[in-house]
């Protein structure tokens, strides 16, 4: 397949989004929204897998991978290729030169910018060049390929699942329209050739996320969650936008390949802007990828339908921050503190979110905090600045997409079967009721817990190995206690991860079979949601009161995800390593000097032990000895309450940020009412008073008007007469 066809990857889902909007118009047409979306995403996936690998020059991949590549020709990085769909924003301006030679030399040194020509007004010479260029152009390199695999692959599976899960919903076509829009936006993000296009996609995924979190717009909590997600992301995006402005100021281009080239060319002299840019860009990544301090929106985003939680808020959109940092790693490397900051935030977020996840009762919330925690792992990986670590971070992105989508979709099955019930205290022993879901979720949990030889075992190990390589000073880095601490924190987080995910699994599927149905009986009982604290169940139900297994349409994509969650480690390790190391993400990283296989082996054994001990702890307290768990819970009640309430951070934010802003808003409202409206009323009052003074003259008596006319006439005549006699 021709490489040029990759330009269709975003536009097929965009087309499908438009078609879905049309299908909304007639109820009979709506069921066609799902097939249209699925076909569009699958077609994009096929194009991505067939056409995109042809990009770039395969001869230099080996050099790239080992760090031996040296750029020979400016304007060519060789590993990726740009495909332009159409022109978008161009600004042109003259660059003036004192002499003809200088202008010609400049034009020759920068081919494609313009021809040297004399300025007709003065004696100067000038070159008409494009000073700003942002096209709908797509940059295809191995990193893009990896992301396209995740976005389109998982997207298609989730869309198939959604076709079953959402059937009978009111906004069926609206849902698929928004999913198509999301895939359009997300493929734009990962394929963008310039930062402006990337930002456009970035904002569009935010919009799609907002639309889908607020899918059940009749429920106030969903509306609030959608607004929260949108507003928190705006805070991060402000930094991202400033970062892009500053990138243009610094590099005079927003085209990523050119920026990276300048950043990696040895002639680049760093100044303060190079230190500021990564931190501004990082703000955007923190918002989108839900890291401290902008993580609060993600757990609330679970108000959306479960397929959305799986696709957008677990597998794809939230990883765009990780992708952006990986894509711009050379820019981050220019500041000595940027990548360590990324790693530190990631490590702390991972541990922080994992502790909260241990004391949540709502399955989707457990997985939401788990997502925050796993994203922290990815940040740690990309923030380490080492080949194994960044490979681990991006490999974890892939494996996480598989197992977290699987976990969310299986929890969707539970919710679907129990009419919106999500509280793990109100369900137990469901393995007999929904056997497939039970073992599918088990596969997902095994992978999340990094049980030996599942997918996440390999990816998490690669991150840990990278962290400890950095901590112990391999590959020419300085040994560092701080990174050693982060590594230890990551291991502790791995234990917590294994514990909390199996806690949920053992509670839901093991033990005696007991369950309480949720409150969603049918589509019309919207009122049942209002005020119910944990009710973010979807409107589902079939009218009968027994739990049931999901349909085959919903189960079949889960088997593929489960296969990925279990075996992607074996299959993907070498491939992803090749992809990551032969992309620009790893180009600035030191070549592998020492043989660290001993360290890797040690860490594999260690993390295997950690995972198994976490699982055993969960099995003991939540399967075999549930009474012991509740006893300990009572003894440590303050701690449990602290963790269950998420360290009261949300309440703190409410008290410290939201409430003051709210009061400020009320103050402004009062000022508007009293001062501004008062002035306006005053302006109206003056003519009204003037009118009142002359109003009695309109007596409504015809004779009166006659007299007035006569009087007027008399005055006119008198004036005329006087004028005549006086002259």
């Amino acid at each position, binding site marked *: 397949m021709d490489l040029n066809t990759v330009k269709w990857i975003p536009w097929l889902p965009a087309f499908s989004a438009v078609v879905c909007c049309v299908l909304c118009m007639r109820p009979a047409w709506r069921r066609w929204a799902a097939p249209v979306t699925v076909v569009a995403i699958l077609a994009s996936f096929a194009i991505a897998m067939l056409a995109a690998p042809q990009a770039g020059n395969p001869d230099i991949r080996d050099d790239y991978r080992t760090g031996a590549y040296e750029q020979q020709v400016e304007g060519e990085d060789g590993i990726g290729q740009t495909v332009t769909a159409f022109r978008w924003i161009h600004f042109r301006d003259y660059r003036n030169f004192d002499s003809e030679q200088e202008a010609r030399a400049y034009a020759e040194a920068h081919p494609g910018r313009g021809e040297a020509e004399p300025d007709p007004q003065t004696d100067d010479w000038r070159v008409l060049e494009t000073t700003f260029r942002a096209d709908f152009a797509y940059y295809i390199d191995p990193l893009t390929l990896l992301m396209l695999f995740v976005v389109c692959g998982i997207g298609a599976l989730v869309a198939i699942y959604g076709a079953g899960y959402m059937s009978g919903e009111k906004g069926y076509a609206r849902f698929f329209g928004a999913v198509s829009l999301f895939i359009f936006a997300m493929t734009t993000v990962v394929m963008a050739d310039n930062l402006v296009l990337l930002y456009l996609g970035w904002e569009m995924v935010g919009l799609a996320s907002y639309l889908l979190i607020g899918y059940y717009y009749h429920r106030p909590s969903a509306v609030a969650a959608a607004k929260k997600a949108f507003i928190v992301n705006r805070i991060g995006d402000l930094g991202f936008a400033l970062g892009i402005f500053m990138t243009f100021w610094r590099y005079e281009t927003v085209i990523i390949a050119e920026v990276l080239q300048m950043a990696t060319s040895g002639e680049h002299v760093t100044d303060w802007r190079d230190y500021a840019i990564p931190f501004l860009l990082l703000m955007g990544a923190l918002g989108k990828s839900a890291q401290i301090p902008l993580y609060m929106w993600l757990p609330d985003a679970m108000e959306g339908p479960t397929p959305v939680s799986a696709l957008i808020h677990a597998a794809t959109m939230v990883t765009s921050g990780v992708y952006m940092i990986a894509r711009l790693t050379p820019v981050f490397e220019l500041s000595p503190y940027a990548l360590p900051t990324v790693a530190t935030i990631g490590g702390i977020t991972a541990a922080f979110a994992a502790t909260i996840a241990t004391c949540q009762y709502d399955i989707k919330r457990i997985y939401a905090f788990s997502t925050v925690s796993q994203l922290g792992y990815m940040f740690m990986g990309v923030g380490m600045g080492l080949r194994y670590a960044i490979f681990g971070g991006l490999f974890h992105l892939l494996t996480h997409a598989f197992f977290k989508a699987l976990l969310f979709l299986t929890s969707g099955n539970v919710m679907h079967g129990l009419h919106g019930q999500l509280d793990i205290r109100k369900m137990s022993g469901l393995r007999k009721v929904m056997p497939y879901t039970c073992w599918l979720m088990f596969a997902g949990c095994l992978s999340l817990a990094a049980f030996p030889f599942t997918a996440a075992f390999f990816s998490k190990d690669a991150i840990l190995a990278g962290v400890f390589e950095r901590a112990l000073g391999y590959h020419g880095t300085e040994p560092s206690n701080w990174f050693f601490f982060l590594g230890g924190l990551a291991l502790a987080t791995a234990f917590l991860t294994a514990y909390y995910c199996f806690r949920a699994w053992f509670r839901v599927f093991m033990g005696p079979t007991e369950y309480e149905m949720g409150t969603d009986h049918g589509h019309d009982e919207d009122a049942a949601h209002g005020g119910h604290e944990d009710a973010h169940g979807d409107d589902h139900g079939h009218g009968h009161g027994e739990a049931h297994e999901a349909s085959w349409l919903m189960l079949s994509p889960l088997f593929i995800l489960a296969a990925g969650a279990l075996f992607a480690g074996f299959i993907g390790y070498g491939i992803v390593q090749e992809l990551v190391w032969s992309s620009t993400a790893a180009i600035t990283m030191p070549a592998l000097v020492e043989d660290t296989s001993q360290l890797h082996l040690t860490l594999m054994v260690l993390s295997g032990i950690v995972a198994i001990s976490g699982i055993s702890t969960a099995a003991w307290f939540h399967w075999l000895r549930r009474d012991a768990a509740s006893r300990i819970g009572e003894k440590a009640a303050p701690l449990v309450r602290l963790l269950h309430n998420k360290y009261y951070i949300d309440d703190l934010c409410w008290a410290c940020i939201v409430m003051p802003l709210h009061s400020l808003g009320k103050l402004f409202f009062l000022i508007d009412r009293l001062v501004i409206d008062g002035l306006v009323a005053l302006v109206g009052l003056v003519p009204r008073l003037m009118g009142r003074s002359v109003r009695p003259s*309109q007596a*409504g*008596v015809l004779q009166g008007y006659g007299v007035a006319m006569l009087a007027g006439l008399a005055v006119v005549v008198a004036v005329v007469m006087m004028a005549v006699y006086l002259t």
Partner: protein
Amino acid sequence: MTGEMPSLVLSHFLLTGAVLFALGLIGFVTRRNLIIMFLCTELMFQGVVVTLVAFAFYHGNLEGQSFVIFVLTIAAAEAALALALVVLLFRRRRTLDAAAWADLRG
């Protein structure tokens, strides 16, 4: 024929017009019956017309007189219209009293 009227000079005609106009005006201001008020306005009108003819005669041209013919034609049409309006107003309030129509009083 110009000016050969020793006993009847311009000022007599002007006086007649002025008297007619004044009578109409007094009637319009003092009476409340809509038809009488309308007749009074016609009277004022005729006063003006007489003045116009008198001046035309005095100046010895026909422009004023032809203008008067037009004015009378229009006045006839306007009289038909005004009487029709009076009839309508009467039907609404069952009275011809102009004071019954004071809705726009300020």
